[in-house]
């Protein structure tokens, strides 16, 4: 079991955060939690198909990372990305509509849960192939080196990946390129302890994942993924290094997955005790309790936040429900970005050459 504090650089005593910041972070966490629980429900009710992976338990990591990422930066995520989409600023309705496979979804209903994309918000996709996002994210950082000089206002790339993903070849090849070419990118390993049912220790010969940059002379830091401020500050530091020094960094956020790998996984491989332990560290509950203790919120204001999150999710579901399915006439709409002759627009029963059948 990874100790979230092992290897964490003791940070200077923190400035207390303004209450408004805390309220904002809690609002986001509460919205993500409500959205994810509803997504699970909608999946059970067959409104959502395919695979559906939730951020339940990772809300502090999600919000901390997105708080650090500037609008000018680019984001590449995994298939476990609903929370990132919301925190990055996608409308809950259009995200839910994507999960429902509706034409109003952020990817036009073509991508689904694993493939949320918003060009305007520079969130360049959820990716369903393990490690698939790492080389393109690295190439996005390469493109930035042609755009402008390093500096505090430069753009940078953040690339998310899971703990299990550190064992695939694209991780190695990409991090070597990023270090070799001095690319402005932060690789965030969201270490939730498991790849499906496989523990980090069972999958990675170096289970202290933040150390795996050693093969590229790349610095790595680990933060407690349940500590939204620590996550934000570590991500900011790494992003600054990317902007100013064009130095890539590994940031490991030790987080947790409170549910199964995907909505359909009952996670039987986890003991009741383990599940209990995780529940007791639920980041949403912890932040809520803490803010009430600190007097940033009281029961009422906290409830109001949770209720408004519920209300947003209700509206999102309503929007998704009412939205139309993509029209079958648009099936071939995105066949190519540059149209060329003889592009096949053929339905399964059509002949290969229009103009129908010869025969004797």
């Amino acid at each position, binding site marked *: 079991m990874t100790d979230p504090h092992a290897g964490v650089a003791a940070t200077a005593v923190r400035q207390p955060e303004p209450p408004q910041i805390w309220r904002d972070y809690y609002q986001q966490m509460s919205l993500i939690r409500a959205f994810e629980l509803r997504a699970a429900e909608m999946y059970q009710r067959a409104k959502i198909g*395919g695979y559906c992976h939730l951020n339940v338990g990772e809300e502090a990591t999600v919000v901390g990372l997105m708080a650090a990422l500037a609008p000018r930066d680019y984001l590449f995520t995994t298939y476990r990305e609903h929370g990132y989409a919301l925190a990055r600023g996608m409308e809950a309705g259009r995200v839910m509509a994507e999960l429902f*496979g509706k034409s109003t979804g952020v990817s036009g209903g*073509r991508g689904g849960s694993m493939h949320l994309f918003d060009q305007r918000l520079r969130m360049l996709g959820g990716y*369903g192939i393990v490690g698939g996002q790492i080389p393109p994210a690295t190439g996005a950082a390469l493109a930035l080196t042609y755009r402008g000089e390093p500096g505090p206002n430069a753009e940078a790339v953040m690339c998310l990946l899971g703990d299990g993903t550190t064992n695939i070849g694209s991780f190695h090849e990409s991090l070597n390129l990023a270090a070799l070419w001095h690319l402005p990118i932060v690789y965030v390993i969201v270490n939730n302890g498991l790849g499906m049912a496989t523990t980090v220790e069972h999958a990675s010969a170096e289970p202290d994942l933040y150390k795996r940059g050693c093969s590229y002379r790349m610095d790595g830091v680990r933060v407690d993924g349940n500590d939204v401020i620590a996550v934000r500050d570590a991500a900011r530091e790494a992003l600054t290094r990317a902007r100013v020094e064009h130095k890539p960094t590994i940031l490991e956020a030790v987080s947790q997955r409170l549910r199964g790998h995907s909505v359909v996984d009952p996670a039987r491989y986890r003991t009741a005790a383990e599940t209990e332990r995780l529940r007791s560290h639920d980041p949403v509950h912890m932040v809520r309790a803490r803010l009430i203790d600190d007097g940033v919120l009281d029961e009422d204001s906290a409830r109001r936040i949770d209720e408004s999150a519920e209300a947003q999710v209700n509206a999102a579901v309503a929007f998704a429900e009412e939205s139309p399915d993509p029209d079958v006439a648009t099936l071939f709409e995105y066949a190519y970005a540059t149209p060329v002759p003889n592009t096949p627009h053929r339905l399964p029963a059509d002949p290969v050459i229009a103009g129908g*059948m010869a*025969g*004797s």
Partner: protein
Amino acid sequence: MTMQTYRQALHDTLRTELLHDESVILLGEEIGIFEGSYKITAGLLSEFGPARVRDTPISEGGFVGAAIGAAMLGMRPVVEIMTINFSLQAIDQIVNHAAKMHAMFGGQVSVPMVIRTPGGGGQQLAATHSQNLEVWYAHVPGMKVVAPATPADAKALLTAAIRDDDPVLFLENLALYNTKGEVPDGEQVGQIGAAAVVKQGRDLTVISYSRAVSIALEVANQLERDGVSVEVVDLRSLRPLDRETVCASVRKTSRAVVLEDDWLSYGVGAEIAATIQEGAFDYLDAPVRRVAAAEIPLPYAKSLETAALPTAADLVKVIGEVLDATRFTR
């Protein structure tokens, strides 16, 4: 005979072969503690232990390559790749290594490895998780590629694949795991390289493999009632391909339609149509038609996904067109 699901037939066959031959080992992601993404290996870890049923990191190229090396030393690894879409991570090891070694090294070594992997769309898994790429492997000398359509064939061909000394890509399909069928009891060793006429008919031949065979049979039986006698050929083996069985059927029926789940252009059906027009030219009354998936990265939205994938209705329509073109009278 026992009534079993395709999943159960695979599970029982793996278990039987693990018991039958010590050199058989299973490798793959989540096949142990998680019991397999599709639960094919349920219970095998606890029965055979972690050395014989080995959970791997997410490193398809690494563990498929490791299976190749183990096979070179006489083990009989059966690798599960979660879906054929992920086999692209391992394809250099499969095609540039496993498929080459026996011939390239002058017959001094062989690679008795099986790769089990499901293909198929229709589950709303979107463009990267819904592909049917078996034609790539079927194109490659040195590979053997089988695609059983029924629980009985799954048992017989998996047994044959595991006991075969060459690398075998064993194609499964997400939509087949829960399908049921009669499975003969006792040892059954199937024939790699042989197709089968799974329904006799006089008027037209439908050629298919894997999941699509059940659709072909459903349509054939339906048309039977309308007075059209459809013969169904199940390819079973894509490499080697049993051309003679296909052509013999078409020489009899003089009409042919291919039903395939992959994309039309350069798909499996292209080889079947090309083979028929050469091997049964004088007997063909109409062009061989192909019913295949629309050529677009498969969208997630159900409305679009359904429109893009071949259905029984599509097959009925195309069969009708072929019959009309040849002035067939019911």
